[in-house]
């Protein structure tokens, strides 16, 4: 898939290059994912789902399902399949801490590719991806659409995101709660370095409203392994603070605290029926997505 000619004319050369690069990466990921899925013994789409609604005044009588009336002796209205297409809300964290990591292991870069691939997959399946970029506020919101041009817009929006500000999931989740209706797939991609918000509780609320919530906990290997060696002056990427510490001396304690926090988060999510997926940025994006999709039954 290539960007429209009109868009290309408006884009700066470096942005255009990045856009194409992101698109290529997304294509590559999707190809990999699809190949993986074909090889898998599980087939079919779980997101194609027909829905009935009890008749109420004002509903189009043409859409009454007579078969259902015959069976249940009550009127049900049959909804069209295109109306039941999946709306996937892709929440991408663009706070300062997401800027950690070099090259492909950069967390924001990794999240961009992941979101782009997911958006592409959704559009390909006639689903409607929505994009919500955030840090401590909503930076960018693109409502769900299934048009193929929507993918290009998503890519643009993704590239506009820069890692800055503090992480605060309360704002985007509240925004989402007030915006979305019906059943939706909500995918949150973040490192979750939010000290203030009870993330799990807020996600659980969305879950309670019949949304399917998946939390991609995106972490860099440095954060998970903490393999620094020499005396270092650590700088907070979301604040002004600095701290001189000997990594070798504190590694054990760090891992204990950090993994304790991450594992607790995972446990809480699972307890509330929220799918928690820990993603290391040194893994391939397609590998992470494939694992996710396979776990959902292809």
């Amino acid at each position: 898939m290539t960007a429209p000619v009109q868009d290309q004319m408006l884009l700066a050369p470096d942005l255009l290059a990045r856009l194409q690069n992101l698109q290529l990466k997304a294509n590559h990921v999707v190809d990999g994912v699809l190949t993986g899925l074909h090889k898998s013994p599980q087939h079919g789409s779980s997101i194609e789902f027909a829905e009935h609604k009890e008749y109420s005044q004002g509903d189009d009588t043409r859409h009454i399902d007579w078969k259902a009336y015959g069976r249940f002796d009550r009127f049900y209205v049959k909804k069209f399949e295109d109306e039941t297409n999946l709306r996937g809300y892709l929440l991408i964290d663009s706070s300062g801490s997401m800027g950690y990591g070099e090259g492909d292991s950069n967390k924001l870069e990794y999240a961009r590719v992941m979101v782009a691939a997911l958006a592409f997959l959704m559009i390909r399946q006639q689903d409607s991806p929505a994009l919500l970029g955030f840090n401590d506020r909503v930076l960018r919101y693109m409502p769900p659409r299934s048009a193929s041009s929507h993918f290009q817009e998503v890519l643009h929006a993704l590239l506009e995101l820069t890692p800055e500000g503090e992480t605060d999931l309360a704002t985007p989740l509240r925004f989402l709660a007030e915006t979305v209706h019906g059943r939706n797939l909500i995918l949150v991609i973040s490192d979750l370095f939010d000290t203030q918000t009870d993330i799990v509780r807020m996600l659980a609320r969305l879950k309670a409203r019949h949304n399917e919530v998946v939390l991609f906990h995106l972490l860099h290997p440095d954060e998970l392994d903490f393999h620094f060696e020499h005396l270092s002056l650590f700088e907070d990427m979301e604040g002004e603070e600095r701290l001189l510490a000997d990594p070798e001396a504190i590694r054990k304690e760090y891992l204990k605290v950090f993994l304790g926090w991450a594992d607790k988060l995972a446990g809480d999510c699972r307890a509330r029926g929220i799918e928690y997926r820990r993603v290391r940025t040194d893994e391939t994006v397609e590998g992470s997505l494939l694992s996710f999709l396979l776990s959902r039954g292809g």
Partner: protein
Amino acid sequence: MQFGFFHTALLGGLLLASLPILIHLINRRRARIVPFAAFRFVQLSNKKLARSIKIKQILLLLLRILLVVLAVLIVARPFTTPENAVEIAAAQNRPASRVILLDTSLSMQAMRDGRSLFELARKKSYELLQSFPTTDLAAIVPFSRAEPREPTELTFDRAALLDTLDKITPGYLSTDLSMGIERALALLRESPQELKIIYLVGDFSHGYRLESSPLPGNPDDPLLIPVDVREGKPLPNLSVEEITAEKTYVGGRPVWSIKATVANWGAEALEGVPISLVSEGNTVAGGFLDLSPRSREVKEFVHGFASAGVLDLEVRLPDDILEADNRRSLVIDTGREVRALIVSGEPSTIRLKDEAFYLASALDPAGDGRSQVHVKQVTVDQLPGMTFEEFDVVFLCHMSLLPLDAAMRIREFVYGGGGLFISTGAKLAVDDLNEGLSPLLPGRLRGSKAARVATASEESAAALHLSQLDFTHPVFRVFDEETAASLYHASFEHHFLYDPDPAKPKTILARYTNHQPALVEVAYGSGRAILYTSTVDRQWTNLPIQPGFLALMQETAHYLSGRTDNPIPQVAEVGSKYVVAAADLEENVEVLSPDGRKTELATLDGELQVPFVDRPGIWRVKGKTRSSIFAAGLDPEESDLKPMESGDFAVISGQLRPLGQGNDGGLRTEWAGTLMGLILLAFLAEALLLRWMG
């Protein structure tokens, strides 16, 4: 227990102990900056561990510093020596010879906490003697500069040593550590015992500051143990360092300028310190001094002494911790009373016109008889029948025709030791003069010489003046170039020309600016005469109205009377000998020291001497016919009671000597082995700590 090092210079390596700290600081500066997303967790972990990590890091740093320090100490080779006899006895059972060198110098008289340093030293020496094993030989050697050597020997007899100790008293001499050590070494050299120890008991002030160890540096040098009785405490002290006297004239009156140099050896400034001048037991002047820390000030007293003769003076400060140096004595000779006879050749009932008016006024300025020169004025007519023996000096003024009998008697008087002053006059014929005074004149006069007549434009430029004054001569001694200005200023219109008699030895004391003699001295037998070739009134010169005329005539009277033969104050330094002047060389001379004690005189090399001046103050030498006095002063440096620095102690005790060069008798304990063990322990602790820190 005393510490020392064989290679003290290598202790400079202790600076290396700063290396671990420097490395630590450099590492901190070189810390990599890491922007980190999970900063909160680093902060949390570090906070939890910060205290224990810090403690471990400090421990590690201290361990590494300790390692460096230990390594340097090992290289410097530390050792200890026992400090006192008890320790030594405990450390070594071998018999020893021990000498207590007891400081008896002046500074040991200083008081500390109500007791003199010497009392403290004696107590310490007593304790040392008591602690010596009875099998050890011991001796007590008092020391100070020029201390008369009393026989002493190493003995086992403690009672005798204690008796000796009781008899030793502090003196007024300065410290001479080298001499004391020499005496101790001489004693120990004869000792058969291998272990030899010198206990140096003293105040460790000025006299102990040596550039090198007093020990000769031989392999058999004894162990030197300093015992500081002042314990390094400062002892602020004031002293009169020097006193000088100089005769001068103020307002035509002879006075003395007494200058005392006062030193403040303390570390604090002093204000309003009272100081007084005492003469013959009476306070005659006083004042106050402000003294900066460790400084000197000069106080000048200007005083005219009413009595004539040899006087003893003393400058006094208030008593302090060392009283002996708060006063210093001096002897001055103000000259004896002189009886002068003035024979006026041109008398007048109007005093101002009398030839001798200015001379008489100069010799007795107040005219009340209180001057040291008692004047009797007569005319030529009164000379027959006069006896001159009742006078010391005769002034012949404007005299030409002198009765032969009188002239001969005057000649006899001068040959017998009297003084004669001859001045000329404007109305004298040169032949009359030569004839009339021929027995007395040192040569012949040949007419008068007038100064060149001034032209209208020159006016006074033609006048003659005095020149080439012999300031080494007693009559000019009170003058210097400045005060002699009034003499140089005097102008002369006429003077007699003088032809010297080659047979008579003479001295030209002053000339005119035309190089002709103005004052000529000649000796006659035991006496002396001075010829003045101009006038003592204003006929030929204005000299008599110059301020210097008074001093010149008074000094001349004293000189001719023979009373100023030995005017220099007699001073001796405590600890030295004093040679009694040859004039005093006679039998049955007795000397009284300042404390009234009779002292024996010794005859050495034909000189009568006080062989050892042992205390400060006025010493009186009394002979059958004549007496004299002299003042003895202390060594000013001995008043410096500033305590020694630790480095000075090291020099004295010879701790800088390399190993093996001293006879330590096996008393020194080396600590290198112990330190090596400590290093190993430190390494082990470091390894454990690193492991603990992960």
